[in-house]
């Protein structure tokens, strides 16, 4: 067996075996399972790096492990596609996972169900890897749902909390709604092309009528909307913060939620051949970016703020893939994975330090108490708000510059405003948590987290500093672009560059946006020249809207969930029991009624018997003779 193929299949094998081990024999391992699990993921990280270089210096390849489902003309195997896109994703996924695993050892210390946690974390890594390398839509769909399942389990890790198990259920069901569209897309694709294998499908796309392509693309995008928590299916992600923080870092920031972006990049041919669909992607992305940032402005739960910022950053990525600059999208995906993972881990460390406190209003002045955490957090924050030289700057500007140059000015404007808001809310968080005077009760003993937690944070922070330079502007001469764009060369160019404003002007604007956001936060929360209360009172309705997350959950509840339940109850109590079953029992009672009547004939009176007999006789004679 060829070495690279061996490597390819070893990468998912390790987490899989990890899952089985902890799942079956978890209780024999106790704390050890954490280290071994991290080791497993680490190994597959190293392997993926090796694979990365193999691919970088040779070329991509595909391989089929075994034929999986063959029914009639339907053929799908367990097969992998290893090209530059997938290796990049692989390195990112396994890398972040490794760090999160290590971090979790400290974070989940002494948790009941420690092994269960790691088993499912391993299962998730396995599923994510498979999702990235899968070579046909069936396999993709399988692991598309599998990761959703993992997140369901991990969100509901503390299942005894109703809120937790609710959140898990919500995540799964909302994802299912998206997957419904995704599945429909796959059906349509199969109905038109009679195959689900990537290369074969892609060969069909250019010759396909554009409306079909659009339909397919939009249906697939529905799946992405669900998975990547875009509006209107974003509702599950904030609630998902009920899960352990490392889970949020890994699944709900770095990897799973970006699967939607990856999927679109993977199917760039389908999307690029349907401008309309891409328009929709762009629109949804833009709106979500703005909308989520707007909600994030006024939240007080630090994890929720970061969650909303994740949604908004994903919006950026969709903007990117929506205008056909897939490389930029992926680049932002990578850098975002790094700094958002960092932010979550640090937030987790804050929680850890405050023994589970999440409310900003009960924090403050933590800088002195937990320096490492604070510094790394600030690094993350700077990266998020796109201040050079942090990675966020390069990746976000690559996107915004592309958008401007391709002439989507409105989207660009929104993007810039969002950048401002982003900088504001993240620094609002930083200032309130770390710098403003302490509001937490002195009884609580605050402590810096243990090494095993801080080391991954530091690694990620340093990555957040350096990784950006891979995309050194001008972006389309950068290292990353050079490495990846070859995969997208077959994409149809539906949005050509209309004007060529040099990158530094645009970057300047966005940097200014970021800085002004930070400054606004500064004067509001440190200098206090303007009190937040005042702002609040000025924009009261807006504030209320933002604070209550635009009432989306409530709307869904009242417009969809409640009426449905009522309707279902009606179906059961009335249609099923009353009407259908009533008919069945009705016939039975009808028969018994007749029976009573019939036995009346048998009344025991001899005369009436004779009468019946002779009437019968007469009737027969009559019946015959009238005919």
């Amino acid at each position, binding site marked *: 067996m060829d070495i690279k193929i061996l490597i390819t299949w070893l990468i998912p094998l390790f987490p899989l075996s990890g899952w089985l081990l902890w799942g079956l024999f978890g209780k024999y391992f106790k704390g050890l399972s954490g280290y071994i699990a991290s080791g497993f993921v680490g190994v597959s990280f190293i392997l993926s790096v090796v694979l990365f270089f193999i691919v970088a210096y040779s070329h991509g390849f595909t391989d089929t492990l075994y034929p999986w489902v063959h029914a009639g003309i339907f053929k799908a195997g367990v097969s992998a596609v290893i090209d530059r896109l997938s290796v990049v994703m692989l390195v990112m996924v396994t890398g972040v996972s490794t760090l999160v695993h290590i971090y979790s050892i400290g974070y989940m210390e002494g948790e009941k169900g420690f092994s269960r946690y790691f088993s499912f974390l391993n299962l998730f890594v396995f599923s994510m890897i498979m999702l990235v390398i899968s070579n046909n839509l069936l396999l993709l769909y399988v692991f598309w749902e599998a990761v959703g399942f993992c997140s369901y389990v991990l969100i509901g890790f503390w299942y005894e909390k109703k809120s937790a198990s609710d959140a898990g259920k919500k995540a799964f069901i909302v994802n299912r709604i998206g997957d419904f569209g995704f599945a429909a897309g796959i059906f349509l694709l199969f109905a038109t092309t009679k195959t689900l294998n990537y290369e074969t499908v892609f060969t069909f796309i250019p010759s396909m009528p554009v409306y079909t392509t659009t339909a397919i693309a939009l249906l697939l995008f529905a799946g992405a909307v669900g998975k990547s928590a875009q509006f209107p299916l974003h509702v599950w992600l904030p609630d998902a913060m009920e899960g352990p923080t490392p889970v949020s870092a890994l699944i709900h920031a770095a990897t799973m939620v970006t699967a939607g972006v990856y999927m679109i990049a993977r199917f760039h041919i389908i999307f690029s051949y349907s401008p309309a669909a891409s328009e929709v992607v762009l629109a949804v992305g833009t709106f979500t970016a703005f909308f989520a940032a707007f909600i994030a402005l006024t939240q007080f739960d630090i994890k929720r703020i970061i969650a909303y910022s994740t949604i908004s950053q994903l919006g950026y990525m969709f903007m990117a893939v929506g205008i056909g600059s897939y490389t930029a999208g992926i680049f932002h995906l990578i850098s975002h994975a790094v700094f958002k993972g960092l932010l979550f881990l640090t937030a987790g460390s804050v929680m850890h330090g405050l023994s589970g406190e999440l409310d900003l209003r009960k924090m403050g002045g933590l800088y002195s108490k937990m320096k490492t955490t604070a510094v790394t957090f600030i690094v993350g924050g700077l990266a998020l708000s796109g201040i050079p030289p942090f990675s966020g700057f390069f990746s976000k500007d690559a996107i915004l510059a592309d958008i401007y140059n391709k002439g989507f000015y409105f989207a660009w404007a929104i993007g810039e405003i969002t950048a401002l808001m982003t900088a504001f809310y993240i620094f609002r968080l930083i200032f309130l948590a770390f710098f403003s005077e302490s509001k937490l009760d002195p009884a609580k003993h605050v402590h810096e987290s243990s090494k095993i937690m801080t080391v991954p944070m530091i690694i990620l922070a340093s990555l957040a500093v350096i990784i950006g330079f891979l995309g050194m502007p001008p972006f389309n001469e950068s290292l990353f672009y050079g490495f990846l764009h070859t995969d997208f060369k077959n994409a149809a160019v539906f949005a050509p560059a209309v004007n060529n404003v040099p990158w530094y002007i645009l970057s300047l604007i966005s940097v200014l946006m970021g800085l002004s956001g930070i400054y606004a936060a500064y004067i509001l929360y440190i200098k206090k020249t303007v009190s937040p209360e005042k702002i609040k009172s000025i924009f009261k309705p807006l504030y209320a809207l933002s604070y209550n997350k635009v009432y989306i959950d409530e709307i869904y509840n009242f417009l969809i969930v409640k009426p449905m339940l009522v309707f279902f109850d009606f179906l059961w109590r009335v249609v099923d029991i009353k009407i259908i079953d009533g008919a069945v029992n009705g016939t*039975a009672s009808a*028969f*018994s009624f*007749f*029976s*009573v009547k*019939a*036995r009346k*004939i*048998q009344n*025991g009176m*001899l005369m*009436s*018997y*004779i009468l*019946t*007999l*002779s*009437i*019968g*006789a007469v*009737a*027969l*004679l009559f*019946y*015959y*003779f009238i*005919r």
Partner: protein
Amino acid sequence: MHNMPSIYGMNFLEKSMLGIIPETVIIIFAFFVLFLAFFEKLAKRNNSYYLSLIGIVFSILYVLMLAGRNISGFYGSFVFNGFDAFLFIAILFSGLFTVLMSKDYIENSGMPAPEYYSLILFGLSAMMFLVSSNNLIMVFLSLEFMSICAYILTGYIKDNTRSTEAALKYFVLGAFASAFLLFGSVFIYASTGRLNLYGIHSFLQNVSYLGVAGSGGSIGIKVYISAGLILFLIGLAFKMSLFPFHSWTPDAYDGAPTPVTNFMATGIKLAAFAIFLRIYSLIYDFNVMNFNDILWLLAVFSMTFGNIAALLSTNIKRLLAYSSIAQAGYILTGIIGGGFYGYSGTLFYLLSYIFMTAGAFSVVIIFENSNLISLDIKKYSGIGYKYPFIAASMSFFLLSFAGIPITSGFMGKFYVFSSAVKSGYNWLVIIALLNSAFAAFYYIKIIVKMYMPDKEPAAASSNSSVQGNIPEIAGGAIDEGIMITIIICLILTLFMGIFPQIFINFANNSAGFLWRI
């Protein structure tokens, strides 16, 4: 027509006698049994019981000896051929069962045994005469003979108001019906001038060749013979207990001693159907009148009425009575289906019918003998656990009535229904099937009572839950005669349900004799 000459040609007395040997044997034994009554000592114990059994067995042997012969005696007023052989066997079996199951019953009732058994034997011989009779006089005589025995047997238990009342009703209605039969034969005679069935047959044939009896022709003959046939049919329909001539059935079945009920349900029905089949097959070929749609009506009404009435009845004997009305409807379906296939189907069904009925009644008798249990179905609750074998066989017979597969009932139903479909009576079959669907309800109701007493199994511990209201069989032991009956019926019902081929062959043979006329 092959044996027409033998009908009008010279016959030797021996040959004639040969034809009626089985009946003769039975009658002789009947007289023996009757004589036993004169000697106090002999009347004690069960001599008469065993004697009548021996008689029946002998007669069966004779039938088997004669089987395959084709005899027509006494100037054509008797025939004996495969058809008769088959039905003789069936009738004798029903007599055998009746005798077997009545030992304890008669002892409990405290009535003298010899007369009883002799009456049963006389009744048997009458039935056999009826089956093989080939002349309107003989039909009438043997019918009356049979009925008189039945009347007496029905009212046999002295000082039992129910029994007497049943006899009364049965008698009045029976006489009324046979008056119809008689008047019918008047018309037939008046129009054809023949009393011999073959004679009538040939007459009709000639007439139909002349194109008279068909459409047009001398209306007189047509009207007379049709009226006669209808009246005749009414007379027989009464014995077959078809709606609306059924009304005696529930009361007579209810009031009569249960073995006698069994006798009526199996023997009399069998004989009536047999003679009807014979006459019908004679007149069927040339549509003197379109009998079938009248029969169609009768069948549909009978099965529907029977099932619906049985649905709520709580007395098991009445329930079986109603169900027998319904069964008559099903059997009639086969006759309507007609043709070789249909007739053999009918015969097959009749055969299976006597076995299941006899079985069911013998189970009823078991619980009647142990005087602790009445005929009320409620009292059957929970016997499934106390008497597993009896209850199981009872359920099996009931399922056979309901026509569930692997019982003979299913095969019979399938046979007659397919014959009806074959001759295009689809609606009849659909109605019949729907009927058997909801007929299943009341059969199952009894099984429910036996196996699923209305208390939570969780509540009471394993066996005490069902011990409570179950009767002890008097003296613990069940009469072996009844057990033999049950076992025979069980085996045959099962066997006819799974491997019916051999019985189908018998039925085919006898039906073939009908057909060749």
